[in-house]
């Protein structure tokens, strides 16, 4: 964290919505659509190719929504790397960035070679100039290197130049494709009999659709490059998601129109076409699109070649940009040597990352067989998208309240789940296309893991979202020890919270971990956080004096940007069995039930939770426990028994039957079946009443002076905090309205706690 070694790393913000949309389109409209149409028609037939692009468009839109949501909340260079860093931590994010860098670089080399092949073809065949004296392959490789070097220079000149040049090329190719689509419609309007080319619609069956979707999905992966522009886009929170959505919808409609035009371009029985048009186009495979379009308009071959050159260059430009930003982000966070984050003082671009990317692009373009390596890149892109779709669920769930979103997807989490399933199917399909790719991809990932293990792990720079340990005092821990963590917030109430903890520690023979999280405001550098920890030290010191003589006790003071996430993180890290917290009894944050810290903690921690409200240093002779079944009610009964006075304390299990309900809840059965965890039966009373309002009944019973309750203990079943807006469950309503000391207990035995333990 020392300021002296920090490198200045800030990119200039000058990419408009138009620029970044064009960058996304540029990466999408590459070789995929030109090669995909011919192959698609051959495999899936005339209708199948239309459906391929339309359905891929929907699938791409699902993932684009995930990218859009995350980019709007985390608008920084790095794309999937940043999302994984926040969602899963350092190791996974490094692998994500590592894959992203390689995949984009290799895709760039592929586009450089494609450009070279078509340029040489354009010069030698269409313009009629003969290239003599040099083998064709050497010429193509040389041209590929020159064009790669040109676009590396363009990227070096700056984001604005990158965007402008890329936008120029992309606009050219997009307009050309739109023109093809328009000509196709005109041709059909003049000669409707060409619609017969769509019959039979799916000659090879619907099963082939999945294959063609796999081939052409590469033509939709442009949102990654848009996400990389997070540091350089104007009004990034608004423009990044817009650019992603616009680019997907534009390419989807364009591709469908172009595929339609290709199919109506050929007329059976005319100019040597003696078989159905779709078979004729399909027999050319990857060249099928070109052969069809050359019949659609005058000088079609010329225009098509020009379009492929445009497409290759814009895709090359976008992939170099994307790969550079991925390695820049790794350098920025010291996962790769920090020199990768060096910004040119003149052009404000990450020139070292650019040079490194240029080396990979050049080496792969000239030396390696690109087909299989490109398939590896596709697999890595699919892995990335897979990861991003998981990230969007995890990040909204864990950090939805502290991030500032510029966009939120609809139907959450249905869309990312659908995308995950579909992408898994497509990735598996790629095994059949290139088995070597399934060797290259794991080797690259493995090498990344080694780099992380032996270089990055010890050097990585913490981000502002991570949590740091300021002070830690560890007590020896037995392997089987029940671990209780007490989260202390306020020095004034710390001691009373710990006194209530005492009984639980004794009952469980537990070790205690005292935790104090120091929230540091966003405006303050984390390095200056120490001045915020005085109050926490005071609280920890006092409570340690009280607990340490009796129980193995440890203490930790950490600083963080968000207390809730800090506590959840500490619980996971320490393997805590029970978390104890205090609640002041009121909520100042709008939309929260117990508060902006307690709500997310109760929802997310994968352990038992006990929350004390106004319990102080009191004796509890009669404890009211409303029960209606479930693990939380049993846990509340158990805690009530632990906290009740050892000699004369009694627990009242209280159940309410609605007048319209047919049966009473079987409290007796519940008590019997958990007898080993509860007080002896003679110290548990059972009380049942009929009432039409459960909350009112509980509150009336709690305040009943004849019954003489000292405390209310309740199962705490908070709704996921993101969904609870405007609603109040029974425990929440009682917690807010009850004037008696109260304990809320949440058990980790539920399915949601189990899931959160493992995810």
């Amino acid at each position, binding site marked *: 964290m020392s300021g002296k070694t920090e490198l200045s790393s800030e990119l200039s913000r000058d990419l408009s919505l138009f620029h970044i949309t064009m960058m996304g389109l540029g990466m999408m409209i590459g070789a995929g659509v030109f090669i995909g149409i011919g192959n698609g028609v051959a495999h899936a037939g005339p209708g199948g190719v239309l459906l391929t692009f339309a359905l891929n468009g929907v699938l791409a839109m699902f993932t684009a929504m995930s990218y859009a949501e995350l980019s*709007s909340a985390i608008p920084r260079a790095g794309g999937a790397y940043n999302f994984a860093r926040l969602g899963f931590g350092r190791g996974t994010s490094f692998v994500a960035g590592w894959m992203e860098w390689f995949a984009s670089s290799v895709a760039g080399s592929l586009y450089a070679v494609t450009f070279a092949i078509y340029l040489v073809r354009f010069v030698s065949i269409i313009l009629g100039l003969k290239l003599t004296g040099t083998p064709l392959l050497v010429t193509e490789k040389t041209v590929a290197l020159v064009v790669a070097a040109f676009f590396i220079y363009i990227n070096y000149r700056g984001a604005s130049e990158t965007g402008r040049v890329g936008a120029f090329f992309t606009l050219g190719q997009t307009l050309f494709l739109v023109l093809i689509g328009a000509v196709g419609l005109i041709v059909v309007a003049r000669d409707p009999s060409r619609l017969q080319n769509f019959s*039979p619609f799916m000659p090879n069956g619907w099963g082939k659709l999945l294959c063609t979707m796999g081939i052409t999905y590469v033509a939709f992966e442009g949102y990654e490059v848009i996400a990389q522009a997070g540091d350089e886009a104007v009004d990034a929170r608004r423009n990044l998601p817009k650019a992603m959505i616009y680019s997907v*919808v534009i390419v989807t*409609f364009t591709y*469908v129109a172009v595929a339609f035009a290709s199919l109506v371009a050929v007329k059976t029985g005319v100019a040597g076409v003696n078989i159905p048009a779709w078979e004729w186009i399909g027999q050319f495979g990857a060249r099928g699109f070109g052969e069809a379009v050359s019949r659609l308009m005058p000088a079609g071959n010329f225009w098509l070649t020009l379009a492929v050159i445009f497409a290759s260059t814009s895709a090359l430009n976008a992939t170099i940009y994307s790969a550079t930003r991925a390695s820049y982000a790794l350098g920025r966070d010291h996962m790769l040597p920090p020199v990768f984050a060096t910004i040119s003082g003149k052009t404000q671009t990450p020139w070292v990352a650019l040079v490194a990317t240029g080396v990979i692009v050049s080496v792969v373009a000239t030396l390696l067989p690109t087909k299989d390596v490109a398939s590896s890149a596709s697999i890595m892109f699919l892995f990335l998208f897979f990861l991003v779709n998981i990230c969007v669920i995890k990040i909204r769930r864990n950090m*939805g309240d502290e991030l500032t979103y510029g966009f939120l997807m609809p139907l959450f989490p249905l869309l990312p789940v659908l995308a995950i399933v579909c992408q898994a199917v497509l990735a598996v399909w790629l095994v059949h296309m290139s088995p070597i790719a399934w060797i290259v991809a794991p080797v690259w990932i493995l090498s990344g893991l080694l780099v992380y293990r032996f270089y990055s792990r010890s050097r990585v720079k913490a981000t502002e979202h991570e949590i740091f340990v300021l002070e830690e005092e560890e007590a020896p821990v037995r392997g089987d020890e029940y671990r209780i963590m007490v989260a202390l917030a306020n020095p004034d109430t710390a001691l009373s919270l710990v006194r209530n903890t005492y009984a639980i520690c004794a009952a469980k023979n537990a070790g205690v971990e005292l935790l104090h999280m120091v929230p540091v405001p966003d405006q303050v550098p984390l390095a200056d956080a120490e001045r915020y920890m005085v109050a926490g030290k005071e609280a920890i010191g006092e409570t340690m004096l009280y607990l340490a003589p009796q129980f193995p006790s440890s203490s930790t003071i950490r600083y963080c940007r968000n207390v809730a996430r800090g506590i959840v993180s500490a619980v996971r890290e320490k393997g805590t069995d029970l978390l104890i917290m205090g609640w002041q009894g009121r909520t100042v944050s709008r939309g929260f039930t117990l508060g902006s810290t307690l709500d997310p903690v109760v929802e997310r921690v994968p352990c038992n939770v006990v929350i004390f409200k106004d319990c102080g240093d009191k004796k509890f002779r009669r404890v009211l426990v409303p029960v209606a079944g479930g693990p939380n009610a049993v846990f509340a009964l158990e805690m009530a028994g632990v906290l009740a006075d050892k000699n004369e304390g009694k627990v009242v299990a209280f159940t309410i039957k609605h007048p319209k309900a047919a049966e009473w809840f079987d409290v007796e059965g519940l008590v019997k079946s958990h007898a080993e965890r509860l007080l002896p039966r003679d110290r548990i009373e059972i009380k049942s009443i009929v009432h039409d309002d459960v909350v009112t009944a509980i509150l009336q019973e709690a305040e009943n002076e004849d019954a003489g309750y000292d405390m209310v203990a309740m199962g705490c079943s908070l709704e996921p*905090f*993101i969904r609870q807006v405007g609603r109040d469950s029974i425990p929440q309503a009682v917690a807010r309205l009850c004037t008696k000391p109260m304990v809320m207990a949440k058990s980790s035995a539920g399915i949601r706690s189990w899931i959160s333990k493992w995810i």
Partner: protein
Amino acid sequence: MNDREGDRMTPDIIVGCIVLFAALIVNAALALWGRRTIEKIADKQLGSARDIVQELDAKGDS
């Protein structure tokens, strides 16, 4: 095509056209919804997921 097979609307064509247009409509609808949401979030200066969900829920948009 002398048997005029191409003139007939086979079940494949009917189902295919429905799927095709449905996919395009879903795509366009998601795009329009997304654009509207982005503008709404920016105009109302909403920030956290909670605030946005609350706002969209209130309007019946989510």
